[in-house]
Structures are given as C-alpha cells and as structure tokens.
C-alpha cells in the first residue's frame, strides 16, 4: 500500500510540475515547440498541427513538404479537441504518455533484469536503485520535461519502446513485439531493436515456450512483427487513401530532404555534401547506424537489456533527426545498470561535456539564426561536442558492463588496472 502511495506521489508530482509549466507559462509550449533541439521535422508538434489541419480539410498531408509523421497520429489527434481551442486536452495526453513511460520503466526496474539477467548475474547486483528512484530520475530529468512541454510526437515512440521492453522482461513476447512494431511504425528506427529485444523475450520466455528452440521462437516473432506492421500500414492506407505516406514518412528519414538543423550530425554534413556523393554517404550513414546492432547483440548476448540501452544511446547520437527526447530516453534507461557506475571512468567528463553543450547550443543557435553575428559553424561545432560527449558516455557504460562481466571470470582482478589487447 505504502509502495503504491510512493508511486502515486512521484507520478502526481511529475504531472503537477508539467501542468504548472503548461499553465503558468502559456508562451512556453510554443517556444519549446519551435526549438530545434526538441522538435525535428519528423516529430514537430507544429507540423503535426499542419498535417492535422490538412487532413481535416481533405488535403492529403503527404502531398506536401511539411508533414512527415505516421498517419495514425492524424485520426488520434483529430479525436482530441483542437489544441488551439482546448490546449489542456493535449497537455493531459502528453503528461499521461510520460507517466505511462515512467510506469513501464518502473516495471523494467522491478524485474531486476539489469542486475541479473537469466544468463548472467553481476557480482555487484546488490547495488541498485529502486524503481521509484529510476522513474523519478526519468520524470524529473529536465530533458524529459522540456520534451513533454515541447510536445513532439517522439514521446509516443519512447513510450512504445519502453512498453516493448517492459513486456519483454516479463516474457510476454507477443505484446512486446506489438509495442515494438508500433514504435517502428511511428518512427522506423526502433525496428533495429528487434534482435536484442527478441533475445530478451527468449531469455525470459514463459514455461510453456520453454521447449521451443531459439530459431523457431525468433521466426515466430518475426512473423508477428511483420503481421503487425502490415496491418498498421494497411490501416494507414485506409486512413489516408493512398500509399504515398510511405515515401513521405520513411522516405524522409532515409533520404533526408529536409535539412533543418538539429542536435545530430546529419544535417550540416548533407548541407555541405557534394551532390554526386550524397546518396553514397546516406548509405554509409545508415550502414554505420545499423552496424552496431549485430556487434553488440553478439558480444553482450548475456545481457540483452543492456544491448537495447546502448543501442538507444547510439540512436540518440546517430539518428537522421535526433532530438533531446532520445537522449532523455537513454539517460532514463542507464540507471537500470546503476551497479556498474563505479566502474565507469569518464562519467564526470562526459556529463559535464553534455551540460556544456546544453548551454552553449542554444547560445550559438541564437548567434547564428537571430543575432546573425555567428555563422552555422558555431552550432555545428556544438552538435559535434554534444555527440562526442554522448558517445563517450555510451562507450564508458559499455566498458563498465564488459568489465563487470570479465570480473566474473577473473575475480582477483577487482580494482586492478586492466588493458585491452
């Protein structure tokens, strides 16, 4: 009971904070919606409004260069009262989504998958944070709050991913796969999470599936995901009446026609790229992004959850249109591996780099776009720093986990300096 009360307290507080921000600073939501760090062309709330407007007026939103988001969002938001006249409805929806995500996160923490997966049990597993702490860390992370206020549609993806994992850790692979396909349908890249997620499901599979082999298990779920995706696509086809949404939604992520600045590395690269090489480098970038999946999944076979976390971190850096909402997701998942923090080496460095970038980014963006006294390189340099800081963090966490595994093999090596050969 008391436990429940704590949960309620945390969620209530989080909701209250958000709602206060929404109501006390009426200008804030639109301000944050305009920030490139929060809204990207594929998640922006303003573009969603535009798409919705066109959809309500029977103009195909996909026959234009503005709306690049999944069709299912259109009827969803069409059901809500319009955000101009009844903004509070939208606010409530977004707050709700955040709380659902936090809830899923809490479930994951409860399952203790972080400390001891079914194949591996960390010697340090004793040292961990309660689900409440982790949920609170997610809910009160400034990035998460800013994202919630900015209302990009990426929060739905976040929520779906977290639910996919939370279902996976309790072994209900069907639901997990469903959530995953929703996430992938909303914004494509989560489909790369399939391999580790399916392994997670397999490790935690229920008693009645105990005897079926990995291969059959995987194939079954592949079918499942395919089925879900197909039905979603077909539904979208029915909603929009044509298949052109495929090109306008996923094509944009693949081909990057919209070069609006964001915290990622793609936009400036492809602004400055020579036309003849553009497609080649698009291929290279996507290849690079997906190249991590296999390596991590194989090397960290025993801790699939951490593979997912690391992948999320990598996506937050190398996606075509990343935003701080992706970062907030990664930072939310990381505390699940609280027990390896002592093994991390550059935490402070990485975090302070990220903080610096967080402050300098808006400053330089202002200098470039508004004051006109700085040029694009200012903001670009900061995105570089940001990405570097994040990748140091990701790599460091990975190091810690690997070392944790290694020390199981060689207990006498605790606290010793080690090298890699």
């Amino acid at each position, binding site marked *: 009971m008391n436990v429940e009360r704590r949960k309620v307290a945390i969620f209530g507080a989080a909701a209250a904070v958000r709602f206060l921000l929404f109501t006390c600073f009426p200008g804030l939501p639109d301000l944050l919606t*305009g920030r*490139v760090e929060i809204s990207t062309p594929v998640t922006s709330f*303003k573009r969603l*409004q*535009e798409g*919705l*407007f*066109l959809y309500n*007026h029977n*103009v195909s939103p996909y*026959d*234009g*260069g*503005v709306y690049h988001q999944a069709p299912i969002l259109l009827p969803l938001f069409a059901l809500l009262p319009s955000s101009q006249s009844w903004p509070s409805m939208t606010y409530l929806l977004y707050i709700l989504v955040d709380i659902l995500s936090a809830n899923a996160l809490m479930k994951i923490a409860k399952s203790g998958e972080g400390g001891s997966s079914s194949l591996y049990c960390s010697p340090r597993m004793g040292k961990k944070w309660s689900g409440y702490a982790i949920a609170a860390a997610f809910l009160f992370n400034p990035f998460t709050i800013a994202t919630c206020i900015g209302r990009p549609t990426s929060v739905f993806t976040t929520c779906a991913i977290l639910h996919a994992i939370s279902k996976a850790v309790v072994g209900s692979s069907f639901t997990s796969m469903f959530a995953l396909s929703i996430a992938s349908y909303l914004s494509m890249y989560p489909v790369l999470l399939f391999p580790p997620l399916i392994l997670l499901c397999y490790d935690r599979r229920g008693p009645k599936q105990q005897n079926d082999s990995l291969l059959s298990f995987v194939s079954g779920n592949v079918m499942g995901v395919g089925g879900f995706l197909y039905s979603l696509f077909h539904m979208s086809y029915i909603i929009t009446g044509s298949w052109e949404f495929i090109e306008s939604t996923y094509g944009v992520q693949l081909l990057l026609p*919209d*070069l*609006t*600045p964001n915290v990622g590395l793609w*936009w*400036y*690269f*492809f*602004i*400055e*790229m*020579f*036309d003849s090489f553009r497609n080649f480098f698009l291929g290279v970038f996507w290849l*690079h992004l997906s*190249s*991590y999946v296999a*390596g*991590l999944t194989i*090397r960290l076979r025993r801790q699939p959850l951490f593979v997912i976390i*690391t992948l999320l971190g*990598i996506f937050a850096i*190398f996606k075509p249109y990343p935003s701080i909402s992706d970062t907030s997701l990664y930072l939310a998942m990381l505390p699940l591996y609280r027990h390896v923090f002592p093994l991390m080496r550059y935490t402070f460095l990485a975090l302070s780099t990220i903080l610096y970038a967080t402050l300098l980014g808006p400053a330089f963006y202002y200098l470039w*776009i*508004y004051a*006109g006294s700085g*040029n*694009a*390189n200012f903001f*670009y340099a900061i995105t*570089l720093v940001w*990405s*570097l800081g994040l*990748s*140091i963090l*990701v*790599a460091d966490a*990975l*190091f810690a986990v*690997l070392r944790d595994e290694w020390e199981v093999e*060689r207990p006498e*090596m605790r606290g010793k*300096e*080690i*090298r*890699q*050969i």
Partner: protein
Amino acid sequence: MWGNKALVAMRLILSLLLLLSAAIPHATASSDYHEQLNLRSLHPSLLLASFNFQSNTSLTSFEQQNFRYFPRSLGQILQHANTRELHLRFSLGRWDAESWGARPWGGAREGGTGVELWAWVEAESDEEADGRWLTLTNALSGLFCASLNFIDSTRTIRPVMSFEPAGNHSSSTLDNLHLLHGTLPREVVCTENLTPFLKLLPCKGKAGISSLLDGHKLFDASWQSMSIDVKPICEPGSSDCQLQITQTIDMVLDLQRSKRPRDNPIPRPVSYEELRCDLSKDYHSHDTCFPLDAAAQEEEWILSHIFGHPLKGTCPLADDGIDPVCINVPHARHVYASEGAHEHKDESGYKRCFALSPDKDFEIILPQQEISEKSPLEQPLLYAERSFIGYGQESGGVQAILTNPSSTNAIEFVYLETLPWFMKLYLHTLKAKINGVEEDIIKEMYYRPALDRKRGTQLEIRILIPANSTVVLTYDFEKAILRYTEYPPDANRGFDIAPAVITIGDIAIRTTSLLLPLPTPDFSMPYNVIILTSTVMALSFGFIYNLLIRRFVAIDEADQWDVRAVRLKVLAVAQKFMSRFLEKRSKDGKDD
C-alpha cells in the same frame, strides 16, 4: 407535296444564315492595327504615359502561317507550343495607389515586379501541357532576352480561381486548355527587353508613338510596365475568329528628373535665386529659407524634353480611326500642340486627343500655370499591402493588409500566393481579421502544398470585403535551410518572393514583392565538415568496437617496457641467435 415547300423554306433560311455568317467577319475585321498614347499628369509633378498598340489577324490566316501585322517570330512560337492565349509582363517599380489613384487599365495590363507569364496551352494531358509550357518559356526567353527559361516546375503553378481566359475559346478547345502561370521576381527588366519588344511592332519604333520610346527615359521612370497579350476573339455564334495581340507600355515619369539635361543629371542644390521660399516666415532672410512645395501650381513640360526627342509623325500602317495621342488634363489647362495636329476635346472635360499629320514631328507644350482644377483621380478598388512579420532566420510570418476604400459596395476577390518551396507555409496558422476582429470571411480556398525541390506552394483564397473595412491576413511559415549548392552567389541578400495577385473580376492588383533571408551555411566548409563529422563517427565507432572485439587483461599480463625487461629480452634474442649459430657450427663439425 407539302413537305417540298417546307424543304424550300428551310433551304432559304439556311442560305440567309450563311450570308449573315459570311458578312459578320468583314464587319469586325475593320480595324487591323492601331496605336495610342495616353498622357495623364499625376500629383506631384509626375506624368503617366501609357502606350497601347493593338492589331488583329484572322485566326484562319494565322493558322496558314499568314501573319499580317502579327509578329511572325511570336506567332510561330505560339503555334509550336500550342498556346491559345498568352500574357507576358515585364514590370519594374511600385505603383503608389494612395497618391496616384487607380492603376492604368485597372491593373489588367501589368504584372508583379520582374517578369510574369501566364498562358493557356492546349494539351491532352498535364504532362503534355508541361512539356509545351517548357517549350514556350524557353522560346520566349530567347525572344525577349529574359531568363524566362528559369520558370521551372518550382516556379510554375496552375491557378484555379484566379485567372480567367480573356479571349473567347470554343468550348471544345476550352476543355483541354491548361492554364499555367510563372513568375520571376528577381528578374531586372532593362533595355535588352525593350528592343525585342519594339521589334514586334509593325513600325518597329521608327515612326508613330513608338518612336518616343527609348531606353534611357523608360528605365529612368519611377514605375514602368510592358505587357503583351495574345488572345482570340470571336463574334458569338460565328465560326471565324480573330487573333488579337495587344502590346502596352506604361510608365510614370518624374517631370523634374526627366527635364534635367542628359549631360548633367546630378540634382545639385538649386541656385539661391531659384530657391522658392516661404516669404511669410518672420525669420526669412538671405541665408534662411523655409522651402515651399510645388503642390499649388502645375509644372510646365514639353513632350520632347520628357522623352528626349519629338514624336516622328504617325505610323503609316496604323489606320486613321483612332487619334494616336491623348492627354488627360482639364480643359482649363493650356496645351499647345505643333501645327498640323487636330485637337478633339472630350466632353468629359478632362481629356483631349490629337490627330497628327503623317510626316511632321509632333510636339506638345504645357506651360506653367496656377490652376485649382485637377483631373480627378480614379479611386482604386482595393489597397493591398504585404509585409513580413517577426525576425530571425528560423521562421516568420506574412501579413497582408487589404483595404476596401469604397464606402458603398463590398468587393469579392481572389488572393493568390505563390511561394517557393523553401518557405514552408503553415496553413493552420492562416488568420483573417476584419477591422481587428477575427471572422470567418474566407469564402473558398484552394491550397496546393509545396514539395521539397519539386514545386512551390500555391494558395488561393476567395474573400469578400464589406464596404470601407480592412482585412488583415496573416500566416506563419518556416524557413528551410538549403544545400549549399542551391544558394545563389549573393546568398546573404535573401530570396525574392513573388507578389501576391489579387484578382477582382477581370482586373488584377499586385502587392510588392518580398525579400526572404534564409539561414546560410558556411560556404567554405565542405571539406572541414566532412572531415570533422567523419572523425566523430569514427571515434565513437572505434570506442565501441574496440570494447567489443578486444579482450581484457590485467596490465601486468600485457607486454611492458622497462629497463630490465629490455635487457632480458635482448639477451634472450642474443642467446637464441648464438645457440642456433653454434649448433649449426657443431653440426658442420660433426659432418666433416
């Protein structure tokens, strides 16, 4: 038997009809080519000169390549591009409706700043139409030395509500006529466009009113517009149609400026004597002067001073029906014309026209004159203003202020915006305020969103403005950032946005064009960016894959470097070497 009679009667009627139909064309084809110059003095000390050249050719002879007064070069282009109706505009400057009143021809003969072209092309399908449109623009750009060929798919729209075909087309052709419209707001109109324009005239600018046209004066005007319209006109019910080409040039000349001698155009301060001061001021003295404005009296001017040279006779090809020169001033104003010209005063009291003698130079002189009576300014139907709101290079808004001055009648019009694709319009932010209060006055809307690098935005709104009220249209947009090869050389100047076209019935009003600054990348960076970004990616790839593929060992298990170790290793190598060497020796020893 009875049937027979009826048959005869029928035949009679038919023949009559035939006769009639044969007679009508001759009636209409009376005038083949005529030209007219209209002069109207605008306050303050400005002169509006509008030239009008018009000629008809029967469509049948046109189709037989038998162009009479119709310019052959243009004619062939039209035929080749299956263009049934053509409107081409070159304009420069801004018409100041507040002080100059209504536009010449009610705005029907002018375009937005730069070049504007719209045409009805006959084609089976849209693709075919596009192809022919491409042909047309390229051919015209060659003909008029204008970069019309830059009107590509991103600058072309197909207006739905705005433009109506001016000519009359048979319903059969009307079905597969395609209206295409394109603008080049950045195009600077200049002499090289005028010369081909004059070449199209029957008198080629050698005689007649066209002899007044000359680049220096035309392009020194405060506002000027050249137009070409080609349209078929058919008598209702008759099969024989005519193809009419109308060329007009309108310009607003600053009298003082154009009176300056060409060898000394600099507006030096006037000498102390000519300085017109307000003597009533108490402080007036030899070195202190409160200037008087020249509003009270009419400037004196002479035709040949304004245009640089006198009018050389009439164009022999023009028929005499219409007086070639008219001037809109009150009858009270003294106007002296050179002899041989016959003046016809118009009964309206404000217009008089002159019939010239064919081969003598013609000259008009208006002396300076204190006169209270002024020819009335025709009030425009609508005042339109458009400007950007907001600042910064991320996003912004457009605000169009449309005022209906008339105190009695409401006006319905269509507001057409054509925006480039990199100006991402948010339609849901479109608001219409009437006299400050938000109302739903938008009757009808057609919206075609832009596609990146494929086509521009097209927005047409039908609005009804009640009598003397003001409508304010606002909408937000976002500025896209382009690939660095897509910027013009003067990237930091910004991009010109074509004027909005406001169609009221058959007349059109255009707002001014806008300058849209876009965020610019650093154009010197490509290599650095490629290198830096790749480095960051390589780094993190390195971090992670190093961790993944290399194995951990304790420091001491790895090779170390230190004095002792080195010595031992050196020794070991030496030993190995020596031993092998000596073994060999001993072996050899054994052998022998």
